[in-house]
């Protein structure tokens, strides 16, 4: 026993320094919390253990403005990471500011990545001015989570076991029935946060015929903006939707059975999967595409992409770039596990695989991809963009009853239009 311990210790001592000196260290930053974070950490561990020559050192920073501020500041002083996650919606804003380093076709093909492996819309979003600035990892959207027990009790489940909530009047009366049947709220949403409100707001907005968020130098040229804002506000006014709710609270309202349904991104799928698996969720849950409330189906969507920050001070070395490309390719090819975090993989071979096609609840809401509404392609759009700021500053107070919707839209126009140029 003693001997084997000694042998083990000495072999460890011998192997450690060797490994450390041989491996290329890759600094990785992401903003992935929730079930996303758990899944990604596990993918990184798998990568590290299967690649002795590369070691990913990962940090997770606060999502949104803080993350993108740190990226910009660190790139300016040459302290940027080698690889980072980045929202495709933000590329039109990021590329002109010079914070992204483009990949050459040769670099991409060296690890077998190229346009033919991705959905055209997704790939194009990562390409600006003929250059590829990022590699999509996934497409993620907002969905409607629901408590099967409560919906069943309120008679809102169809014969196929899925919720019957299409049509705005029908959806609202559904919320009322849920409340009448003992739910504190029909549905919960992170109503204190501009980002979450934008996801629902923009989904509903795009469901209306003739609605266009931006046209030329104008924001909200039609009255659709006000209509959506007033609609969400009326749910909150009638206490059908939770008001001024923070992100974790919006989830807790659903998991504790106080809210019968919950609007959130697909990335919270693992939260509920894990809770259900550990018998900590007192009900059966499901997730479906956001109901068609207006004229046509539409769901807000965005993509996580991998990108390399550009820095004048300290550009990435060839050695690290090679390692980074290998990381990106591996992550894409192993994104079936990433899909268990609710996402639709960006890498087409995985999407086409049989394993993915039978994954639940992904399969149920897979139809949303056909009507995905991506953020406007503009430098005022995307995560942590002026549009997100305006949502936080004007629309959030408005739906929570602090600001008249018409006034809020007017203030949003005043703020955003001068920034379009």
């Amino acid at each position, binding site marked *: 026993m003693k001997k084997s311990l000694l042998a083990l210790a000495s072999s460890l001592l011998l192997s450690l320094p060797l490994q450390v000196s041989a491996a290329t260290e890759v600094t990785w930053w992401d903003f992935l919390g929730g079930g996303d974070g758990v899944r990604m950490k596990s993918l990184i561990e798998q990568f590290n253990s299967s690649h002795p020559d590369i070691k990913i050192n990962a940090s997770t920073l606060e999502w949104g*403005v803080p993350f*993108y*501020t740190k990226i*910009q*500041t660190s790139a*300016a*002083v040459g302290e940027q990471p080698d690889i980072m996650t980045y929202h495709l919606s933000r590329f039109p804003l990021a590329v002109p*500011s010079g914070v992204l380093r483009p990949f050459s076709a040769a670099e991409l093909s060296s690890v077998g990545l190229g346009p033919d492996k991705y959905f055209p819309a997704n790939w194009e979003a990562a390409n600006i001015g003929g250059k590829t600035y990022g590699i999509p990892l996934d497409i993620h959207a907002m969905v409607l989570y629901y408590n099967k027990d409560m919906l069943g009790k309120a008679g809102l489940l169809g014969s196929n076991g899925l919720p019957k909530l299409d049509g705005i009047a029908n959806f609202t009366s559904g919320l009322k029935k849920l409340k009448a049947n003992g739910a504190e709220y029909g549905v919960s949403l992170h109503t*204190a946060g501009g980002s979450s409100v934008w996801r629902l707001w923009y989904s509903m907005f795009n469901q209306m015929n003739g609605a266009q968020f931006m046209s030329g130098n104008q924001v909200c040229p039609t009255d659709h903006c006000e209509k959506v804002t007033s609609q969400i506000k009326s749910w909150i006014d009638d206490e059908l939707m*939770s*008001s*001024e*709710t*923070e992100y974790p*609270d919006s989830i*807790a*309202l659903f998991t504790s059975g106080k809210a019968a349904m919950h609007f959130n991104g697909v990335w919270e799928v693992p939260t509920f999967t894990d809770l259900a698996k550990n018998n900590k969720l007192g009900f059966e849950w499901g997730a479906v595409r956001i109901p068609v409330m207006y004229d046509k189906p539409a769901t807000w969507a965005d993509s996580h992409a991998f990108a390399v920050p550009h820095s*004048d*001070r300290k550009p990435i070395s060839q050695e690290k770039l090679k390692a980074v490309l290998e990381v990106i390719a591996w992550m894409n090819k192993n994104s079936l596990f990433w899909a268990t975090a609710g996402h639709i993989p960006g890498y087409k071979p995985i999407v086409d695989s049989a394993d993915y096609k039978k994954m639940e609840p992904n399969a149920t809401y897979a139809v949303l991809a056909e009507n995905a509404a991506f953020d406007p392609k503009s430098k005022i759009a995307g995560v942590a963009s002026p549009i997100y700021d305006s949502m*936080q*500053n*004007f629309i*959030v*107070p408005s739906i*929570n009853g*602090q*600001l008249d919707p018409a006034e809020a839209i007017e*203030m949003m126009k005043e703020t955003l239009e001068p920034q379009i140029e």
Partner: protein
Amino acid sequence: MKYKREEVLYAVVLVAPFVVAYLLFLIYPTIYQLTLSFQKAPLIGPGEWIGLDNYVKLYNDKLFWRALRNTGVFVLWTVVPNTLLGLLFAIMVIRHRPLLQAIILACFFVPHILPVTVVTDMWTWLLSKQFGIVQEVLDYFEIKRISFFTSRNWAMPMVAFITIWWTIGFNIVLFIAGLRNISPELYEASDIEGATKFQQFRYITWPLIWPVTALVLTLQLIFQMKIFDQMYLLTGGGPFNSTLVILQLVYNKAFQGNDGGYAAAISFVLFVIILLTSVLQYQVLKRQDD
């Protein structure tokens, strides 16, 4: 005056570290930031001389005036209540026996030594709209739940209140020191003459404690003008910029907007305001000493 060579040599060695640090981290940044404010420049990298343009832009920037006003409002919300409550608590604490006094004082003082992030985390949890215990107190009194940090009416006063909660211990300590310096004989004499508690406060405590009050007021004034941390962590400047303060604007412009020159101009205005206030404070305190 003649200097001894050896003494001067010792002096040079002794003051050198401080002086070097002083020049490098105080004088140089002050000059650098002033020159940066006359340039159109990114945060890092060369800029272009544009004279007073940044200051002209500042003068016409509604957001700047708003941030200045918000900073002023925050100072009003914190400085006077913090000082008066500090005095009140000090008077209440000092009446007790030493051991009890130490325990009560610790209750008021512990928040002051906590990091700001710990303070904001605690209060975020306490006030959470859905699960905060404060909301349950509101429920008990059948008051509608309040989302303190996203409400236009509540955000600023709430951050001010939390700031008072955090920093009052320090003021209490200063006041207790001041109160101990007031001779007990004065109170005994007035007791004999049949003065009421209020009269004692009005004619003995208040005038004699005034130097400490003035000190606390001015220290608070300068400290609170530099508000950023709690505001950033609790409201981030919202809702609709109603809690956007000067340093938050500097942070937004420099580190999010990469507009180093303009941010330098904004922070220089704050720099001058605080400096002027400090000079004023010095004058006030000097007059007291005379």
